[in-house]
């Protein structure tokens, strides 16, 4: 079993069209879409816009009428559809668990089809249950109908991840959940994604969900084409058309604060180094930086300790274990609103920001967030003026 999960692969849709005989309007019309490896791309739009059809063409549950879909460099037409689907995780609304099989049997279906032996399947099932936050001893042998909607969907996600596929397709996976479980599942998906870095195609009609989850969002419109394909912040600050603006609805500015991710704004760059770096060199760097402290990372770029100028002055040789341990992180995927909350509760004035696999990407302080909010405000004001002039 691989210790490191398989990361995502890119997916490329080239002029993909799906039309049904006897229907004038194609369900999907010459759609081009580049889905980068390891990202969550949300297909967003009203019902009937072709978003689910687009997703189902990726694992060939629907065969495209024309065009090509290239997954990790391989044309999907050249792969046997059953084999293709065993290597693409599939999560649907209400989980779609088989009610006559135990939770373990549900999760073990794909590995079993891939010919894994029993012991390996059992081990993998326990690993996945732990991963999605269900205790294996309690849930392994229960039947799906004993579980709550949220728990069922966790098992659904575990089943999709069973054979460690590089790609995950999720068709309104949290649509049937109550708002509280939905929020929780979204948060858990995001933190899971930080570990796994899969390529995820996520279909929804919920704007807030799309803005929260997506690295990129493709806003779709009838008949089956993309109106705008951009990051959430870009879509909010610069909607491509009236249709997009209308679909997003009002309250864009508030949403922007709530939905701008820490990774999207300019973070502070404090001096950082590793434990084996020379203390004197670091001291020189800290002095020239002027802030008076630096961050020590481990070999995987994960933040370990804050070290102050005073501590460094007494040191020679490697930095070692000098300084105070880092007590809190802010994830690059957190919203500005959540980051603000974390900052207010933090022990230190500055908190490190971490990205995938907890790797350090920058630092955040209240001032940084304030500046970012100011920048967003200006941006919004300019945009409104520009649009106002345009329509007059």
């Amino acid at each position, binding site marked *: 079993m691989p210790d490191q999960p398989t990361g995502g692969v890119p997916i490329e849709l080239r002029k993909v069209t799906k039309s049904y005989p006897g229907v004038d309007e194609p369900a999907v019309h010459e759609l081009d879409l580049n889905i980068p490896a390891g990202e969550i791309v949300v297909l967003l739009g009203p019902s009937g816009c072709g978003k689910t059809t687009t997703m189902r063409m990726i694992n060939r549950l629907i065969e495209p009428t024309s065009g090509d879909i290239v997954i990790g460099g391989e044309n999907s037409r050249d792969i046997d559809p059953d084999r293709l689907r065993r290597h693409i995780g599939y999560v*649907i609304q209400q989980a779609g668990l*088989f*009610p*006559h*099989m135990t939770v373990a049997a549900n999760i073990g279906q794909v590995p079993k089809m891939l010919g894994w032996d029993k012991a390996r399947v059992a081990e993998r099932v326990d690993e996945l249950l732990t991963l999605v936050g269900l205790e294996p001893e309690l849930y392994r042998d229960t039947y799906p*109908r004993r579980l709550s909607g949220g728990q069922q969907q966790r098992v659904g996600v575990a089943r999709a991840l069973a054979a460690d596929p590089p790609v995950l397709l999720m068709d309104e996976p949290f649509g049937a959940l109550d708002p509280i479980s939905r929020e929780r599942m979204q948060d858990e998906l995001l933190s899971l994604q930080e570990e796994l870095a899969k390529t995820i195609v996520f279909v929804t009609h919920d704007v807030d969900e799309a803005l929260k989850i997506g690295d990129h969002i493709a806003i779709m419109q009838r008949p089956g084409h993309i109106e705008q394909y951009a990051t959430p912040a870009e879509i909010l600050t610069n909607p491509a058309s009236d249709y997009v603006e209308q679909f997003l609805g009002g309250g864009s500015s508030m949403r922007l604060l709530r939905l701008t991710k820490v990774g999207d704004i300019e973070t502070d760059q404090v001096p950082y180094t590793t434990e084996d770096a020379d203390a004197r060199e670091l001291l020189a760097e800290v002095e020239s930086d002027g802030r008076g402290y630096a961050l020590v990372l481990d070999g995987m770029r994960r933040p370990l300790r804050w070290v102050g100028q005073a501590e460094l002055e007494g040191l020679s040789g490697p930095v070692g274990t000098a300084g105070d341990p880092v007590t809190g992180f802010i994830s690059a995927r957190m919203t500005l609103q959540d980051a603000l909350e974390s900052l207010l509760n933090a022990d230190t004035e500055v908190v490190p920001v971490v990205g995938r696999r907890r790797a350090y990407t920058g630092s955040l302080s209240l001032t940084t967030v304030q500046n970012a909010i100011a920048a967003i405000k200006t941006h919004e004001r300019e945009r409104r003026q520009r649009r106002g002039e345009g329509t007059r």
Partner: protein
Amino acid sequence: MNLWEYVEDRWDLIVFETVQHASMVAQCVLIAAVLGVLIGVATYRRPRPSALATAVAGVLFTIPSLAMLGLLIPPLGLGVAPSVTAIVLYALLPIIRNTIVGLRGVDPMLVDAARGIGMSRRRSLTRVELPLAWPVILTGIRVATQLAMGIGAVAAYVSGPGLGEQIFSGLARLGGANSINATLTGTIGVAILALIFDGFFVLLGRFTTPGERLGGARA
């Protein structure tokens, strides 16, 4: 001679006829179950063939059993052949119909999930659709068994095996010695067999539907 004395007197013969009756019914239902499920599986996805299969089985079903058995004498003669043929034909309708209804009743979302995780058509059918339709199919087989019990008794009309022999010989010499005893023995024997078979199906259902035992409606 009262009923008890009659039964005691002919115990060996009655046991033999009972075993024959049970064995005939079991084998006929088995044949009908295999045929019926196959026909159901082959047709349930397409409306026209499944309507045709149900209609044909329905027409066969409406032919009175005595007439059916009589009509089978010219091609098949007397004895086991026409009896088995008639019973299988009658047993087909509930099994075909319940197989189609059961398979169609499987939540399309689950079939989509099965296909979506990479199950082939056949695997989806054997691992997901048939197991989920099984309680409904089993009910069909159970109804077919009850039918076969009764028609099996009538099969004595064409010299078929089983307890029907007691009933027909009794009715043939009504008023004669032991006529009522023979008829009663046959009838009660069939009724007891029917109860035993039904009990077997209840147990079979309980042991072959794992998720169901936990109760509650489909989530």
